[in-house]
């Protein structure tokens, strides 16, 4: 006779393997954050001065964009569990649009910097700025591709409550991209 558990079983959403990836990726970024702080401690005035050229509005808006995209993805997962299948591709598409919007703001921001003669070779602060946000941007691009794949399958009613492993896997990766930016933004733009 099957025993009835009074507690919901604890589970990781999506494939366990993606959590290995997420953990390793976060560990690497964590090390880069520490590396940034240590480099900054050797050169505070330079870092503070260089930071003044950064535009907090771009960074803040990008944070709002990614948070909203995560919200759409979380809703898409919930909609699948509630079998509201028609909503899922629409929510994923909105999340993709957010990813694209992030990209546009990023390109505008980089172009602005480069046109004033600031590049990753200018000094150590800008090295961290371009490389940290650049590596993160590559993650956003990859994530938007992942969202596109999820959206395509969802369009064909590919996900349901019983079949949503891929959706949850992709969603977990996307949320990681969001949370990394939540740390990167204050580190680079707001620390003074």
């Amino acid at each position, binding site marked *: 006779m099957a025993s009835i558990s009074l507690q919901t079983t604890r589970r990781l959403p999506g494939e366990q393997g993606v959590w290995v990836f997420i953990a*390793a990726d976060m560990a*690497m970024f964590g*090390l*880069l954050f520490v590396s940034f702080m240590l480099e900054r401690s050797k050169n505070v005035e330079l870092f503070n001065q260089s930071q003044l050229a950064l535009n907090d509005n771009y960074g803040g808006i990008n944070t709002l964009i990614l948070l909203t995209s995560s919200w759409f993805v979380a809703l898409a997962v919930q909609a699948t569990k509630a079998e509201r299948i028609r909503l899922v591709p629409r929510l994923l598409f909105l999340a993709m649009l957010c990813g694209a919007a992030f990209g546009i703001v990023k390109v505008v921001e980089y172009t602005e910097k480069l046109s004033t003669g600031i590049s990753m070779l200018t000094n150590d602060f800008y090295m961290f700025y371009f490389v940290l946000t650049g590596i993160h941007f590559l993650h956003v691009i990859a994530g938007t591709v992942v969202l596109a794949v999820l959206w395509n399958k969802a369009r064909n009613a590919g996900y349901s409550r019983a079949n949503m492993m891929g959706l949850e896997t992709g969603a977990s990766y996307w949320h990681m991209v969001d949370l990394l930016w939540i740390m990167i933004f204050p580190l680079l733009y707001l620390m003074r």
Partner: protein
Amino acid sequence: MNPTAYPTDYKMWRLLAWCGPIFMTIFFFLWGVLAKNLPPAGADLDALQITTHYLDNRMAIIIGMSVCMVGGAFYMPWGCAVSRVMRRIEGPDGILSNLEMMGATITCAPVIVACGIWLTASLEAPQLPPNIVHLLYTLGWMIIDLAYMVTTFQIFAVGVVFLRDKRAKPLMPAWVCWWGFVTCAAFFPVSLIPFFKTGPFAFHGMFNFWIAFFTWYIWVSAVSYYVIKAIRRLEQEDGAVSRSTVSRVGTALAA
């Protein structure tokens, strides 16, 4: 797949799979320890400092790099052994199994060439101008590091195929495949090494040396371990299949 038509040499298969651990052992001790690459002399050292580094460690580097040029080749048979396990999942002519084998083979090239360059630098250091020694040093690093994409394709192929394994107990656990994807991701920032002589993204830096190399090392170790186990398991499974074939044929003949 009929295991008796062309009998599989499981011993040889396992031997080739062991070439992976052999490769790593040779490189850890002879490239890392003996030739003084753990940690490596920095990208920020000037020509005189690099020349001094070679003169101070001349014989150790000559021997270390020479053995590594031989040891580098062991990555190739390892790739063949891994590929053969992948074919049991993908089919005898699987495209990703082919890609893996080619990726492992061509990975030998930047490794062997870079070690040859460093060996020459050490050999000739006493009579070369210091800026030439420095050039050779940098050249070796650019070649061994920037060609990572050939290895990325190998790792990608391994990850995708083993994740598609439909066995109840897969031949390779999923975390190894995903660790492979982590390694692929860690390789991309290596393209920054021409631009930085200091910091985490220089070729001796925290990210582009320690993280990039060690994620790859962990992957090679884990894949080697599970491939060697898989070959034993496939040997048992193949044996069971041919025993049941023989007994069916025997029963049919006896009837």
